[in-house]
């Protein structure tokens, strides 16, 4: 038994992103945080632990600064901390292979993560990991509870919110729900300080990350916003609406 929670460290969503030399300037990022949807996964995992399901294993894959995510997870109740060290960006196959190996190492049959990370906004990891582990996958969950080997989840389906049931092993990707995220307290922070982190290099997990079919060519700032356009009269609205789609691509 036990729940594996995948946490990704990302620039805080309020942090300014600046570009230098054609790349996002990571050194200028003032605050790094656990990706927001991952926090909902962590909260649900701790709730499962409190209902007796087993230990929470927090796993992160990233450079050394990512360890902070694990300490923060420990401060709210994570039991075991795994850090897969990778100093350079990884493609989806590499990330999933590493996480997959770590999940196997942990022995957990329930995996929880955010539905998408706040840096790439991709959402590939959850379903991809499920496919490579041969686990079922429930996406967009807001609440998951376990009864024996069966999980009940509330999730946003194609036609609205629904309650589903699925057996283990399973990956759940989380959306923001109504649960309040618990705060750490001083006791949790002090105990988290003492918790050891199991560190793995890709080689330790038997994963070769030396080659990738994906490489970043450049980062750039979004195009400057065009100056505002002003129109008079409600007759202009059809034109504005089509600009909202064609120019702004917001509908």
């Amino acid at each position, binding site marked *: 038994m036990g729940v594996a929670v995948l946490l990704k460290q990302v620039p805080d969503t*309020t942090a300014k992103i600046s570009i230098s030399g054609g790349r996002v300037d990571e050194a200028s990022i*003032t605050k790094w945080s656990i990706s927001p949807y991952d926090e909902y996964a962590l909260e649900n995992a701790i709730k499962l632990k409190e209902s007796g399901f087993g230990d929470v294993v927090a796993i992160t894959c990233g450079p050394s600064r990512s360890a*902070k995510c694990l*300490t*923060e997870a420990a*401060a709210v109740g994570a039991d075991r901390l795994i850090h897969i060290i990778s100093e350079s960006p990884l493609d989806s196959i590499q990330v999933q292979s590493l996480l997959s190996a770590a999940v196997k190492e942990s022995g957990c049959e329930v995996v929880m993560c955010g539905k998408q990370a706040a840096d790439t906004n991709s959402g590939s990891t959850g379903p991809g990991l499920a496919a490579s582990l041969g686990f079922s996958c429930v996406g967009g969950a807001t609440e998951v509870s376990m009864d024996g080997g069966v999980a009940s989840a509330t999730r946003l389906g194609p036609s609205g919110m629904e309650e589903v049931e699925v057996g283990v092993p399973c990956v759940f990707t989380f959306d923001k729900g109504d649960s309040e995220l618990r*705060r*750490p*307290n*001083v*006791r949790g*922070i*002090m105990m*988290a*300080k003492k918790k050891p982190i199991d560190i793995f290099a890709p080689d330790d997990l038997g994963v070769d990350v030396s080659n990738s079919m994906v490489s970043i060519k450049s980062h750039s700032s979004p195009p400057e916003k065009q100056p505002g356009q002003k129109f008079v009269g409600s007759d202009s609205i059809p034109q504005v609406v089509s600009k909202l789609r064609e120019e702004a691509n917001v509908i």
Partner: protein
Amino acid sequence: MAYEALDFFDIDSLLTEEERMVRDMVRDWVEERVLPNIEDACRDGVFPDEWRAEIGEMGILGAPLEGYGCPGLSYIAYGLICQELERGDSGVRSFASVQGSLAMYPIWDFGSEEQKEKYLPGMAKGDLVGCFGLTEPDYGSNPGDMITRAEDKGDHFLLNGAKMWITNGTIADLAVVWAKLDGEIRGFIVEKDDEGFSAPEMKGKHSLKASVTSELVFQDCKIPKDRILPDVKGLRGPFSCLNNARYGISWGAVGAAQSCFNSAREYALSRIQFGHPIASFQLVQNKLSWMLREITKGQLLAYHIGKKKDDGSWIPEQISLAKMNNVDMALEIARMSRDIHGANGILDEYPVMRHMANLESVKTYEGTHDIHNLILGRHITGIQSFTREP
């Protein structure tokens, strides 16, 4: 708008991971729970009980005390807690200062083992609220001449007198009261249900409105003999407490100043006059620059005195300097920030005038600005100039 706490000389790099996590925990709590509700609390003149409970749950009360369920954090961490609470509101920080430094601390340092076991664990959780009774209607800067007295009646003490300006008094479960027993100042623990004790609330404040301020009235108040603090006599007792609280306030003032600076900066960048943001005008930049310098200096003072508290090498005059300097600069920054906000600065849309009003109290309590000035004067010259005595 995301909060950016001014940290121009990178104090953050001097903190341990634990200190940063504690600071961030309090910062997030203030962001989520205090800031959305503080203006209502001020308008209504209440300190919401939920905040007491949540502060207790965070485990930050009595921050630097060890044992008996207390957090055992560094003084730097205690300072950071005060900074973040006061960025929210001085009244919220006052609750924690009084609880930790003025009520828990004297029991911890001067109390009997039974007293420590009885009160400290509940106080650390916020389940028991404490207050500190030193100041009287006619004895503020001159506590030594207080007239609240205790008489030994054999099987109990009888207290008579009154205390005033007592934070938490009306909501407190216990009060650490300083009174003269045979002419000598001693500490007594008075519980709220003790016969002859009442704690009416003082209304009509223009400052610290989200904080409970009370009188403590003792009319033949009977307390059991085991309520006296055995290990301290004279003003040393209350002054040790005040030193701790003053230390926290030196950090708290930085938090209030950071909040006012942040608001002024954002406002100046958004407010357009004569076709330009006012942040582009030289006089506004001069003010913002002065604020940045003062906050930076204040942070360094607070940090260094925190290190000295942690290694034990401090003297009270250093704390006087830090408290006095930081509160003074914070009040000036609040005023200047209100000025930059123009008319908008008088609305409770912005925190600045609330901080400004609060800081008037903070400048007066825990030793007035002038008193700390004279403490330093005495230290420099060896000559006291508090009184006219020869």
